[in-house]
C-alpha cells in the first residue's frame, strides 16, 4: 500500500489477494516468476501455478487450451517476449476468442540497465492491431489492483502492461477504475454536481495551454511537468490513459475543445502506441488541434531509468518543453 510501488509488484499482490475470489484462475510463467512478481502466487497456490520454462510460445498456446476448458489463465513474461510471440497470440488466443490474460512486465526504457533486448518497446503497437484484445496500462499501484480485478472478471483476452520501476501514486483513494475511460489526474478534481458519471473528465472548466495524454510510467512525469508549469503561468491538464484499447476517443475530443495543443508521452516506440491512438482519434473527429507526440524512436539501451527518460525525451523537462514550445515570450 506504499505510495511508490512498481505496477508489477501491485499485480503480484493482487493475484494473491484475488485467488480465492477466482477459483478458475491459474498462473503460467516462463522462468520469470521472480521478475513478473507471480512468485508469491506460486508459493501460496502451487497447485494453480504452471511453470513452462523458457518457452513463451508454448506457454501462450497452452494458456489458450486451458481457457477453452474454462480456466482463467494469466500468462506472465516480459512485454518484449510476449509481443515476440504475436502470431501465437493472434491464432491460439484471438482466433479462438480464448479468455487468456497476457501480462507483460518490464515495459519500455523504464527497466533501465538490462538494456534494449529486454525492453518492451513495440508491444502496444503490435497488440493494438488485434481486434478484441483489451489493453491496460495502469499508472500506479491503486489503479493496478483494480485493473487486475477487472481483468480477471472480464470474459475475454486482455493484455496488461506493467512497469519494473516504482511509480508515484497519481490516484486518490476514492479513485474507481473504469475500463475504456481515460481519467484526469491533474489538476485535482473539484467537487461538482451533478455527478459526471465517471467522465470525471476534463475538469475544471477553463482553458489549458496543453492537455497531456500519458500512460503507465510517464503519468507521474507528466503530472510533475504540469505542476512545474503552474507557477510559470501555464495551465496544463494530464489525462491518464489506462485503457489503450479500446481507446477513449471522446477524451481527445473533449480535450481539444479547451486546450491549445495536445501532447502525448509514452514509454514505448512513438509509432503505434498512445501517440498514434490520440492522433487517429483527433483525425477521425476532424479536430484541427496540434498534437506533439513524445515517445521512443530507437530500440533502447542501458542506463538508469531517469537518465533514459531524459535522453529519450520522456522526462518532466521534455514534457514541459513540449507543452509550451514556441510560446515563451
Amino acid at each position, binding site marked *: 500500500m506504499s505510495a511508490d510501488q512498481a505496477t508489477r509488484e501491485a499485480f503480484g499482490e493482487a493475484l494473491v489477494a484475488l485467488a480465492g475470489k477466482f477459483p478458475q484462475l491459474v498462473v503460467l510463467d516462463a522462468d520469470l516468476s521472480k521478475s513478473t512478481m507471480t512468485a508469491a502466487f506460486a508459493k501460496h497456490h502451487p497447485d494453480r501455478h504452471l511453470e513452462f520454462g523458457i518457452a513463451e510460445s*508454448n506457454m501462450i*498456446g497452452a494458456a489458450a*487450451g*486451458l481457457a477453452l476448458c474454462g480456466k482463467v*489463465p494469466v500468462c506472465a513474461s516480459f512485454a518484449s517476449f510476449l509481443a515476440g510471440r504475436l502470431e501465437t497470440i493472434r491464432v491460439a488466443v484471438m482466433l479462438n476468442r480464448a479468455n487468456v490474460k497476457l501480462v507483460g512486465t518490464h515495459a519500455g526504457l523504464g527497466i533501465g540497465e538490462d538494456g534494449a533486448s529486454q525492453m518492451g518497446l513495440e508491444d502496444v503497437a503490435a497488440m493494438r492491431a488485434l481486434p478484441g484484445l483489451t489493453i491496460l496500462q495502469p499508472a500506479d499501484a491503486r489503479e493496478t489492483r483494480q485493473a487486475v480485478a477487472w481483468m480477471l472478471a472480464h470474459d475475454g483476452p486482455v493484455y496488461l502492461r506493467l512497469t519494473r520501476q516504482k511509480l508515484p501514486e497519481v490516484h486518490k483513494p476514492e479513485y474507481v477504475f473504469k475500463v475504456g475511460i481515460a481519467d484526469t489526474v491533474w489538476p485535482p478534481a473539484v467537487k461538482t454536481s451533478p455527478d459526471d458519471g465517471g467522465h470525471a473528465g476534463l475538469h475544471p472548466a477553463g482553458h489549458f495551454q496543453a492537455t497531456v495524454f500519458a500512460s503507465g510510467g510517464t503519468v507521474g512525469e507528466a503530472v510533475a511537468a504540469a505542476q512545474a508549469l503552474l507557477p510559470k503561468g501555464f495551465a496544463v491538464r494530464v489525462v491518464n490513459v489506462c485503457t489503450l484499447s479500446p481507446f477513449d476517443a471522446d477524451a481527445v475530443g473533449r480535450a481539444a475543445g479547451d486546450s491549445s495543443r495536445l501532447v502525448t508521452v509514452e514509454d514505448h516506440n512513438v509509432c503505434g502506441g498512445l501517440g498514434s491512438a490520440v492522433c487517429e482519434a483527433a483525425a477521425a473527429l476532424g479536430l484541427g488541434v496540434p498534437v506533439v507526440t513524445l515517445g521512443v524512436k530507437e530500440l533502447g539501451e542501458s542506463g538508469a531509468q531517469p537518465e533514459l527518460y531524459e535522453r529519450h525525451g520522456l522526462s518532466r523537462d521534455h514534457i514541459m518543453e513540449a507543452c509550451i514550445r514556441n510560446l515563451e515570450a
Partner: protein
Amino acid sequence: MKEQTASTKSLRSEIIRMIAAAGSGHPGGSLSVIDLLAGLYARHLRHDPKRPDWPERDRLILSKGHACPALYAVLAEHGYFPKAQLATLRKLGSPLQGHPERHRLAGIEAATGSLGQGLSMGVGMALAAKLDRKDFRIYVVCGDGELQEGQVWEAAMSAAKFKLDNLTLIVDCNGGQIDGPVHEVMPLEPLADKFTAFGWDTRGLDGHDHAAIDSALAAAKQITGRPQALLAKTVKGKGVSFMEGSCAWHGKAPNPAETEQAVKEISR
C-alpha cells in the same frame, strides 16, 4: 471392416468434391489423414454430435489445419452439420473456413492452420482436465513436416513434464510438404527416437490400416504417466493414383476431369 472401407471411400470422395467445388484446398494431406480421423471419431473419441459443447467430451485438435476438408467430411458424417454444407467450403460466410475456426463451426475445438500450435493448445486442455480431475482425453493430429516448428518440441517437453497421459499426438507421416519431400526440406529422422527421448510413449503404425489404427489408439489409452505419440505412416493423396506421393497435390484443387477420375478411382 468392410463397412469402414465403404465409409472412408465416401469420405474420400467428399474431400475431392468439396475441394473441387471450392476451387482450392489441400487434397494430399486430407487424403493421407482421413483414415485416422474416421477411425478416431467412429470408435475412440468420446463425443456427442448433439452436444458439441458437452464438457466431458474428448477433444480433437487438427493441428494440420489445412487438412480440414477431411475433418469436415467426418463431422458431417457424424451429423454435426448437414452434408449439403460441405459444398460451401472456403466460400464467403461459410462456417467451413479454409482452415478450421472454433467459433464458426460446432465440433471444431481450436483454430489452427498456423502450423506447430496445436500441440500447445492440447497441452493446455490436457492440463485443464488434470486440474479439474476430469477423465476426458485430448487428441492432437499434426503433420510430419509440421514437426519442423520449434514450438512443437516446447510443447512435447511440457507434456512430459506435466505427465499428460490424457494426451495423444497422432503424426500423419505422409513424407511430403509444399517444397518437397520432408527428408529433403528438413529431415526429421530418427523421429521415434526423438519423441522417446522427450519422454513420450512412442509407437509406429500404418495410418491407412483400420485395425492398426484401432489397436494403436487402444494401446495409447492404457499408458499412464506419459503422453503418447503415434507415428502413422501414410501416403499423401492416398486413394487417387495421380495424387499419391505427389507434393504437387499438397495444395491444389482438381479440375473437373481430374475430379471425375479421382472419384471413379476412389469408388472402385
